[in-house]
């Protein structure tokens, strides 16, 4: 079967003054449709950078990334933003919620932007918020929420579009262990019931253990890859 996400020898360099930082250094990974891949690694190992590149939020310095067969380097910025909107659900480490919108509005934003505001779309947003335990905080603004609650709104927002690919950066980082477990069970459910592909970055081994495959990064390189099933 053809991979849904392929990274071929991907590198990413940042220049900071005269210093060059190799955040990613020749990473090659294949992710199959419907697979749940965990990416582990110490802080600074390149996990977030990797997720940003896969999510077409940033371009690689070298190598190529294929998303559903399309080579990202050959696409225009507009084409990349279409892919982001239509194919990918992001759960960011810093939540990226809009401060002036309520939980419900934040979670409903992707569906609104995609021109999908029918009753059933709104219903699904509400269901997602309830599933992550935010059903009673629909009208709260981000500043009225704890870190863990913002994280859950961000998760509901990512899942409300039922994207083909879910990219999650430390989705349990701000949650206590019980809530973290419930969140991971929801992600697992997305994979098993809807066949969504999940790539999750985490330094938490208990979270990583939900993956079918666990990849470990160190200094921007893949140092280990193990099948968990």
């Amino acid at each position, binding site marked *: 079967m053809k991979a849904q996400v392929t990274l071929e020898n991907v590198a990413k360099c940042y220049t900071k003054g005269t210093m060059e930082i190799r955040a990613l250094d020749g990473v090659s990974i294949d992710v199959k449709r419907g697979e749940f891949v965990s990416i582990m690694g110490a802080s600074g190992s390149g996990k977030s950078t990797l997720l940003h590149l896969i999510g077409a939020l940033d371009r690689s310095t070298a190598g190529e990334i294929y998303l559903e067969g399309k080579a990202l380097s050959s696409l225009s910025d507009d084409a990349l933003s279409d892919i982001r909107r239509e194919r990918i659900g992001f759960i960011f480490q810093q939540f990226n919620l809009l401060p002036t919108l309520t939980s419900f509005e934040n979670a409903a934003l992707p569906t609104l932007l995609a021109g999908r505001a029918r009753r059933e779309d709104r219903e699904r947003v509400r269901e997602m918020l309830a599933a992550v335990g935010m059903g009673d905080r629909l009208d709260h603004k981000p500043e009225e929420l704890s870190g863990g609650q913002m994280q859950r709104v961000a998760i509901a927002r990512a899942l409300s579009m039922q994207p083909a690919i879910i990219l999650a950066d430390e989705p349990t980082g701000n949650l206590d262990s019980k809530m973290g477990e419930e969140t991971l069970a929801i992600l697992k459910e997305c994979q098993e019931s809807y066949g969504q592909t999940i790539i999750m970055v985490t330094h938490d081994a*208990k979270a990583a253990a939900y993956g079918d495959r666990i990849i470990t990064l160190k200094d921007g390189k893949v140092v280990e890859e*193990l099948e968990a*099933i």
Partner: protein
Amino acid sequence: MSVRYGILGLLAREPQHGYELKNSFEEAAGGFWNINYGQIYITLDSLVKEGLVEGKVKAGGEGRGHNRKVFSITPDGLDELKRWLKAPVDKVRPLRDEVFVKLAFMDPSNPEMIHDLLDEQRRLYLIKMAELTRRKQRLRKSRAKDKLIADLLMDAGLFHAEADLRWLEHCKAKIDSAQRSRMNVAVRNDG
């Protein structure tokens, strides 16, 4: 020690044959603990001697010796079980894991070998954690009654494995930095 109280606990639920206790015990321990028939019968014998358990031959029962007996808990046994259940456990997990012992006997001037062991150990812990997580998922979806305790036992396995894993990472980081500073000293002495 806990085989003893495990058996008392099981017999407090219902009388059982010795050979049934193996399965009941392993099930109650969430599949984490395998014991053999020998351990069960030795423990049963001493529990009977102490008057905490009694074994009765059932009329028309099959088998020979131990196998014909149905064991049940005595009132003294119930008291002993209650006393044990109420007392908190005062020792933390002993550091007698084989990994610790191996580490103690590794040659510190050969960090490669230590790293290889730690990496291999990390793989194993991760795979175990993934297996446990899958079992938790199956349990979550199953219609089994009383899922909570089994789930909590698997959580205990996960938390322990996580702690061991974090300790391994910590070892690797410390050994790395010790090695780096040794190399720096060597470079300075050369220069």
